[in-house]
């Protein structure tokens, strides 16, 4: 079962490449009632302790595959399953310090059966996705 909050406490960790800490990861689930195609997603911004990460600094991993944020728009055949948290990997050399962090994720998606103006507002309807997480 998933945690009730959008941002999951499991999956919050630093990531390394070649022995160097290159950034961190955070997992979150959709609070929408259906899965969406990746091409419906709009790029995410991750804010940790007031510091913002967006664009190329963030990648999405869904069902084991990793996508640059600019690639999402092309993947209209890949569904983000409703019960599967997406993992955002954020580039931040050195990663985050051990301890407590305030984490926020902003993102949006298109919703074809609602007036077009809603596409950019879904982020507000589903938010705020904020949680205090503990990095071990």
């Amino acid at each position: 079962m998933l945690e009730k909050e959008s941002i999951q406490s499991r999956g919050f960790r630093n990531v390394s490449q070649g022995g160097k800490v290159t950034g961190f990861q955070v997992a979150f689930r959709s609070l929408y009632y259906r899965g969406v195609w990746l091409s419906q997603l709009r790029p995410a911004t991750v804010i940790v302790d007031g510091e913002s990460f967006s664009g190329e600094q963030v990648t999405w991993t869904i069902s084991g595959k990793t996508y640059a944020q600019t690639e999402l728009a092309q993947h209209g055949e890949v569904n983000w399953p409703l019960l599967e948290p997406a993992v955002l990997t954020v580039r931040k050399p050195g990663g985050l310090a051990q301890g407590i962090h305030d984490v926020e994720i902003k993102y949006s998606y298109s919703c074809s059966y609602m007036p077009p103006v809603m596409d950019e507002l879904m982020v507000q309807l589903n938010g705020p996705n904020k949680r205090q997480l503990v990095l071990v």
Partner: protein
Amino acid sequence: MVNTEKPKRGVSLYSYSGEYGVTMTLEDMLADIHDMGAEGLEILANGHIEGYPEPSDEWLENWHRMLKKYQIKPVEYGHWVDSRRYPGRELSTQESYDSLLRDIKLAHKLGFPIMRTKLGVIDDTLTPVSNWREFIHMALPAAEQYDVRMCPEIHNPTVLKSKMVDDYVEFIEKEKTTRFGLNIDFGVFQTNPMQLWEGMPPMEFSPVEDIIPLLPYVHVCHAKFYNMSDDFIETTTPYDKIIATLIAHQWDGYLLSEYEGPNKEVPGYASGQLRRQHILMKRLLGEA
């Protein structure tokens, strides 16, 4: 078709969306529906089908096992033709048809005779995409072959006497088809709407009798509800009048409960509301 049958009870899994995956599994929801003596089921395809749009054989086997175990009848397969699937452009007619065809086949595989076909819209009054006639027309033979009926949902703020509904009826008559019809959401009949969020604009609603001329095209209804009182009254919508009208006109489709009130994420809350609503519907339907 005139007969003496009555409307039947069912539940849309949408009602449990605040708990699904957190405090309830798919099987829990089916068990819950069975427990309130309801039989009909609506799922949301890209929510409740693991591996959508290509569920595994193992998932399908388990699906059919659960339907049997809980004596559930698949009624409506909720799905979307996501016209704004790609940023900056609308789906082409061919892409829309391809998406529709895939869902028609999957609905059939899962045993659903009706599809809640949600179309993309182009404005604030929910006017459907301009090419809907083309891709629905293309899909009619497949709907025939796979024995499903595609039904857009008529949902507030749309009213029953409207250009949108007239256009759908005109299309059905022109095509002489039973493979495309309507799902009427009871939210259109509200007489005492709840203020669901601050700044919710006032809406126009339809009198119950406006459904009568549409009944030949209505294959299923969303028994939308917002608030069941502890003495089993739905406080926003005239259920007594709606169900009496359906019975009087021998409409015998499924009423699929859709809870859209507050506290959906409170464990057990939606289920408690559904159970209250099913007491109301049993009484109005004359079920013991």
